[in-house]
């Protein structure tokens, strides 16, 4: 029972991080038709921003305070990186969707190359407050506190995002634009601003995802290649959930998190497959594609 509880819990935590990574991607694709390869970069940069802040500020602030600042820095770092990307590299290529995708690939490669040059492939460690490393006893299971954090932040973002999309004017514009960009323009609305906004929001969430991933699953270590490996899963979640659907991303993220953790637990170690969880996720993707090509909650593209 306690195994079941802790696996489920970590599955949800993983799902929360995937959701953070995937929902921005999904929105960007839904509104702008762009497969944003630089999303992995935003995740990595967010994590590094979190690390840089925690390391360079005086430790008199205290570990929890520093970590809170790390979180803020990760969000801002991701948002800033995304904003710059959209304005400098995506906007000039408006009307050339394939070029937009290619430019995000190039950016990803170039900046990760820079990071590799600066940091090597070594990792840096984010300082975290003690209680994050500890676990809380629930029933007979020991649930890691980082998982609580990930789930809490994931839920907070989900609700904020839903509120934003449903209650603000720009949220309505984005929802409409995902359906029919041209018609939004034909109502006299400058969709370009919505593009930048969506990128920035996506980047903010990606930055947070990057930081959380480092803390929850990577032993507080941040390395230049991290974001790109997380990106693959974000892509899978987006396709399974349906391009352009936030709720689809949330649902798919949970499912993928569960599948990954459960298969790792129950099938791991068999026939030498140490990371069968990853393979199962891809298998899941193949199954979803066969059965429902537009994803769980996607609209016809």
């Amino acid at each position: 029972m306690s195994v079941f509880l802790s696996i489920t819990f970590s599955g949800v935590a993983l799902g929360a991080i995937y959701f953070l990574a995937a929902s921005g991607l999904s929105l960007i694709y839904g509104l702008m038709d762009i497969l944003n390869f630089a999303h992995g970069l935003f995740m990595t940069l967010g994590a590094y921003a979190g690390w840089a802040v925690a390391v360079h500020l005086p430790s008199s602030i205290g570990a929890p305070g520093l970590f809170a600042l790390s979180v803020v820095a990760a969000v801002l770092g991701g948002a800033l990186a995304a904003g710059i990307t959209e304005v400098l590299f995506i906007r000039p290529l408006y009307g050339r969707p394939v070029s937009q995708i290619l430019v995000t690939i190039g950016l990803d490669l170039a900046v990760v190359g820079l990071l590799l040059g600066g940091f090597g492939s070594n990792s840096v460690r984010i300082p975290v407050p003690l209680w994050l490393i500890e676990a809380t006893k629930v029933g007979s299971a020991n649930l890691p506190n980082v998982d609580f954090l990930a789930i809490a932040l994931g839920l907070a973002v989900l609700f904020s995002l839903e509120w934003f999309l449903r209650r603000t004017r720009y949220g309505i514009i984005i929802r409409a634009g995902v359906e029919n960009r041209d018609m939004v323009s034909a109502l006299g609305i400058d969709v370009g601003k919505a593009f930048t906004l969506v990128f920035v929001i996506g980047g903010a969430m990606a930055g947070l995802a990057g930081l959380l991933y480092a803390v929850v699953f990577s032993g507080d270590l941040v390395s230049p290649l991290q974001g790109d490996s997380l990106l693959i899963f974000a892509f899978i979640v987006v396709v399974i959930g349906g391009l352009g659907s936030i709720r689809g991303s949330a649902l798919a993220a949970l499912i993928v998190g569960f599948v990954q953790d459960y298969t790792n637990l129950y099938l791991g170690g068999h026939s030498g497959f140490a990371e069968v969880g990853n393979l199962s996720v891809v298998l899941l993707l193949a199954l979803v594609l066969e059965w429902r090509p537009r994803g769980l909650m996607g609209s016809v593209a």
Partner: protein
Amino acid sequence: MKSALKVTDLQVAIEGSHILQGVTFEVPVGGVTALLGRNGVGKTTTLRAILGLVPRSGAVQVLDHDVIEWPTFKIVRLGVGYVPEDRDVFSALSVEENLRLAESGPDARYNDIYQLFPELKERARQRAGTLSGGQQQMISIARAMLNGWPLLLVDEPSKGLAPRLVSEFADVLERVAQHATVLLVEQNLSVVKRLAKDIVVLDHGTVVHTGSARDLGDAQLVRQLLGVAGVA
């Protein structure tokens, strides 16, 4: 202002097909001008080209402004309402949200809209995707009228609608045309005869006839220009 809309040598090519090969016409201020032609001749494309929704060359003057270089939203903000051919309401949004999106300022005329289309008020929270074709068309027309803009581009508002609804929408357009200029694409000739003052006929990518709506009384002319597609 001489004309609400002036189009000169408008050219549009899409995927290798040269749809508009030099369209030139003027729409005088006030009243309804009908844009006619056989199926597929480029009427919808003309409207979209005016709004900049397709790449085009030539000259387009909207309400005395040269807009050929302008992005769509800027052209629309001059005061151009658009009722597209397939309604294009946002199905995931509620009726209310669909209308809210169209608001350009605090003077949105919701009272007028709800008076004309009381159903929209009743179903304000309903998801637009669950409405009937006629109700969606109400949304489409309402949001074009919402701001009291001086120019309306209306594309086949009667398409796929029951005759009773067609008549109701014709009433609405008649009312609108009292205060605004309307460029109306329409296959239904009875609606055209009822509403339009002037007509512009397209064929083979250019304008082949301009004149008054009375010309439609000439059956031979109608058959020549429009083939047998003219619905009486």
